């Protein structure tokens, strides 16, 4: 039985797809058979971030509507063997997803995979609720700004009430906080919420902190999940996140402003 993890946030543009791609890749690199599903029907992005947009033939909606088999729609990642992608449809809308259809897809995948990552669309409507409904764990992606924190809080409320585990009185979904686009120097200046404030308001365990990094945009545009960029701060932070998700105790990094050394100041060595 696969573990189903939803990557969600409420607010758009906080880094759900980037995180889903990086974490799915990380889980696969660590030897877990992983599939990542794009639930953002109509705004298909995951395939771009994963760099497989030219290989999409069938999608999630085709599978749900019986127009294609699961194996026809699953795309094997060209870099990591254990990793598969199930893309969303770009020409349909979220009404094309049905609760029964989603359940069947997850059930058939569950036998073959260790991890199923559901990349949720933004918002709290049907698409987001279907993405979270069957989850065992949730990664709530939050930026250090008040609107993002409030929307994450709203999503946490939905995770505790509008999901299969909540409705069947099972043990609650395990919730993880993932803070992205964290800029320690702007936090120091008071322009951004700090780590402790976010943790206090949301009151869930922190699974990772991803610093704001040029590597993320570069990775997205090249279609290579940023976790492959071992040298970058964001790539390392995602690797740490994956380790924590797998139960390892890894110290937090990148949350404090790094004092630039005299040399790097002289030669203008910026962050990668």
């Amino acid at each position, binding site marked *: 039985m696969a573990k189903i993890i939803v990557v969600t946030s409420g607010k758009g543009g906080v880094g759900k797809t980037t995180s889903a791609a990086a974490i799915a890749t990380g889980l696969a690199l660590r030897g877990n058979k992983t599939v990542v599903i794009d639930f953002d029907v109509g705004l298909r992005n995951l395939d771009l971030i994963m760099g497989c947009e030219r290989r999409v033939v069938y999608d999630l909606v085709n599978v749900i509507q019986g127009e294609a088999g699961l194996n026809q729609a699953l795309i094997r990642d060209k870099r990591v063997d254990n990793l598969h992608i199930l893309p969303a449809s770009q020409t349909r809308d979220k009404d094309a997803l049905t609760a029964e259809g989603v359940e069947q897809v997850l059930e058939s995948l569950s036998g073959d995979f260790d991890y199923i990552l559901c990349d949720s669309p933004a918002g709290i409507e049907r698409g987001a609720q279907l993405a979270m409904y069957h989850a065992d764990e949730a990664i709530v992606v939050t930026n250090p700004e008040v609107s993002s924190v*409030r*929307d994450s*809080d*709203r999503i*946490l*409320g*939905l995770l*505790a*009430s*509008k999901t299969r585990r*909540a*409705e069947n*009185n099972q043990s*609650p979904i395990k919730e993880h906080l993932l803070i992205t686009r964290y800029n320690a120097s702007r936090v120091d200046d008071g322009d951004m919420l700090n780590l402790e404030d976010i943790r*206090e*308001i*949301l*009151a869930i365990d922190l699974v990772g902190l991803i610093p704001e990094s040029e590597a993320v945009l570069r990775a997205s545009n090249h279609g290579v999940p940023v976790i492959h960029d071992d040298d970058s701060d964001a790539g390392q932070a995602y690797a740490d996140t994956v380790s924590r998700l797998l139960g390892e105790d890894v110290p937090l990094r990148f949350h404090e402003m790094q004092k630039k050394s005299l040399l790097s100041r002289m030669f203008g060595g910026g962050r990668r």
Partner: protein
Amino acid sequence: MSLNVDRASMAFTFKGGMLPMTVMELTSADPERIREQLAGKLSQSPAFFQHTPVVLSVERLDEPHLALERICAVCRAHKLLPVAVRGGQDPVKQSAWALGLGWFPPSDGSRVRPLESVAPAVEPAAETDSSAEATAGSGRIYRGTVRSGQQVTAPEGDLVVIGAVNAGAEVLAAGSVHVYGALRGRALAGIHGDARAGIFCRELHAELLSVAGNYKRLEDIDPQLLGTSVQVVLDDAQLEITPLT
């Protein structure tokens, strides 16, 4: 003759007040269908039906004449007290008055929201975890964070929240509201009009504080009190916020 009447000689004073009121939005005029649905609701949340005053809204009905008397009887049989009717045409207004009910013009609709305790449209805070919930006397104890969009109500007695109430969340009680954590959302005490109720919290950042319909917004609160432990009580129809030390 002076217009200044001696306070002691007055039998009453008129005061404007904001009382929380349940609106029963009728989508059917058939008393039998209303009876069936009420019976179902009564078994789900018996605590809600405590001679609760309701305003019958007939705005969504398109019928000039209504069996208002029978509808009221059905409500009373289920421990709801119709106090007024909102909307409808002239015959409806006349029969409301004949039944001793008030009549309100149709609302603009912008300030009406579905009520969690009767309408399942708003998701209640995770009530599935039975360990998070305990009843103290007739009140209610809630353990955990009340999150944005959630509403936790104690229809009778006090509400005790052991955790924070986040921005965008709402906690309501017939009695007092106690929050053992940060209060960032809205807190309404004395929702049935109990003026002795109060609000107590460890850390005040509330969006709205209300006791028996008298309210203060975050903007009206002395900034020096923000972030501190306070009690909020009614004193002569004024909300008094004082430090808890």
